[in-house]
């Protein structure tokens, strides 16, 4: 039925629907809560180290393995203490910064490189496409752990190296998505129309392909966000991830796994942080996908009860 694609032939002529982002966000409670959580995460990532205070870095061995949910030792210890007697809450806050400073750059770098290469390859087709896809194949079938060990061997293990490795291994994901979409988009009539004005290919990609590919890429990126966090924790599991005294959620989960049976909170709480953050990111991403699409935005302004009937977006995942 055409209506879905072209919703209310909105000839509600004289009131162009000005979408206020905030109102749109409020319209989707799940997304709203997710946004709040992500804001909190972002806030903690920026100010967490300062907020956490000394108890996050300086341990008190007498508080080693302190059980959570008690305020006896001050609010810092409400989530208990780690092996060195540091406050787990503080550690989580500090770890937020490291985690985000790994995950966000990885996602951004691989997104930017992968997406540009993919759009370029998909737009031009031909040999460029073949080469780009074969390179993606190579990266994908390459054992990423080998790459990790090599990079960490050649360069000393640092956050920058971890970012580099993870970014390289994630590039194909965006490359393939962007290529597929842009290969399809370049056959669209409005791209042809732009060509008839003599618009150079770079400008077409920027103006016509990119904005349409972006929401898909964002969806992929949020899914990837989760993947990168997990990959980082796997690196930590193998001892080649974030190095102490830096701490990331992944490292906390990895280090705490031995205590799972005795001090469960050491790995469960950081694990929860990963899960909650990724779930929020996913929920917010599906909201963004709808909100940035002028053709779908109306869904969010719809009364709640009714929305169920409207066909939901297709979540594409990789």
């Amino acid at each position, binding site marked *: 039925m055409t209506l879905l694609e072209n919703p209310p032939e909105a000839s509600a002529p004289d009131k162009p629907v000005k979408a206020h982002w905030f109102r749109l966000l409020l319209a989707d409670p799940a997304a709203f809560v997710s946004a709040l959580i992500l804001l909190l995460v972002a806030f903690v990532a920026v100010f967490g180290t300062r907020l956490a205070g000394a108890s996050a870095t300086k341990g008190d061995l007498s508080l080693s393995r302190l059980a959570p949910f008690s305020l006896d030792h001050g609010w810092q210890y409400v989530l208990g203490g780690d092996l060195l007697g540091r406050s787990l809450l503080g550690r989580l806050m500090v770890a937020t910064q490291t985690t985000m400073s790994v995950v966000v750059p990885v996602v951004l770098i691989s997104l930017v490189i992968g997406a540009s290469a993919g759009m370029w390859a998909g737009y031009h087709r031909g040999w460029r496409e073949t080469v780009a896809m074969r390179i993606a*194949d190579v990266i994908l079938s390459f054992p990423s752990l*080998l790459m990790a060990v090599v990079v960490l061997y050649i360069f000393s293990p640092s956050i920058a190296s971890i970012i580099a490795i993870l970014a390289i291994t994630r590039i194909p994901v965006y490359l393939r998505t962007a290529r597929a979409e842009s290969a399809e988009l370049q056959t669209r009539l409005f791209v042809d129309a732009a060509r008839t004005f003599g618009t150079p290919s770079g400008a077409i990609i920027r103006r016509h392909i990119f904005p349409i590919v972006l929401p898909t890429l964002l969806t992929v990126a949020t899914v990837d966000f989760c993947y990168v966090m997990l990959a980082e*924790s*796997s690196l930590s599991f193998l001892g080649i991830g974030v190095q102490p005294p830096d701490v990331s959620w992944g490292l906390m989960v990895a280090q705490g796994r031995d205590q799972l049976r005795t001090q469960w909170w050491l790995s469960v709480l950081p694990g929860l942080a990963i*899960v909650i953050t990724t779930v929020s990111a996913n929920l917010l991403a599906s909201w963004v996908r709808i909100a940035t699409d002028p053709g779908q935005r109306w869904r969010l302004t719809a009364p709640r009860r009714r929305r169920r009937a409207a066909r939901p977006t297709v*979540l594409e995942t990789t």
Partner: protein
Amino acid sequence: MLTFLRRRTLTSLPPLLAVVLGVFVLARLTGDPAALYLPENATAQAREQFSAAHGFDQPIWSQLIDYLAQVARLDFGTSLRTGEPAAVMALRAFPATLQLAVVTMLLACAVATAVGCWAALRPNGLADRVSSLMSVTAASVPDFWLAILGIWVFSIMLGVLPTSGVDAGGLSWVLPIAVLMLRPAGVLTQVVRGAMIAALGSPYVKVARSKGAGEGRVVARHALKNAAPPALTVAGDLAVGLINGAVVVESIFGWPGIGKLMIDSILQRDFAVLQAAVAVTAISIFVLNIAIDLGYALLDSRVRQKVGAAA
């Protein structure tokens, strides 16, 4: 069909070669294995002897040429660690990984299909929301964590499953597969759901209904087959991940697979084994990709035509 296979194989060769060469070069950048394999107070002379014996003293390109010549004779060298032929070790470990990957993917697909279809039949309903949330969560749990938790709960607390190993019959498969399956199942569920919603809304489904087809027939015969291709792509990528990277689960459960072999040989600088293992997985990944293309063709005659025509 044959021409398609031939062409795919030919176009797959350069990347395959690139992977093998890449591994060769990268591995050698991680340093000389002499320190690992010789006693701590071995003399400099002994070290040189060792390097010379294994050719590590040659410039990398000449090592490479020798290696390629070797590989052309299907000789992947011998393991520094065990003295066994590297190819034998890789081929011995691979089936374990493959079995695990295949069973995991099959189950993940089955779960994803069931849950995804169910959710798609009532989009935005309660079932849909719950399953969406669960699938996102499933896809974001660290696997090693889950593995250890699983051992704790199912082996020790409940005592219903063996902790690890491969020799407790079917039961020893349960935990590794459950752990490995979670992420693929979560991701696939979302894909299947999306594709099914699209398929169920399409005109041909209406036509099927207009012929008096019941819900079961509509889903099973009409929608599912159309929803399969996107799921197939994603399943392929996930399978590649399993073949190449079940390291964590393999090492926790003592599953003698290729992921573990690979990481061990990286850490032990056992280059020959590493190269052989990478070659085996890379080949299997290329085979998998071809299989997926053929799968498309099987599902969709439009693709079949292209595949048939591609010469």
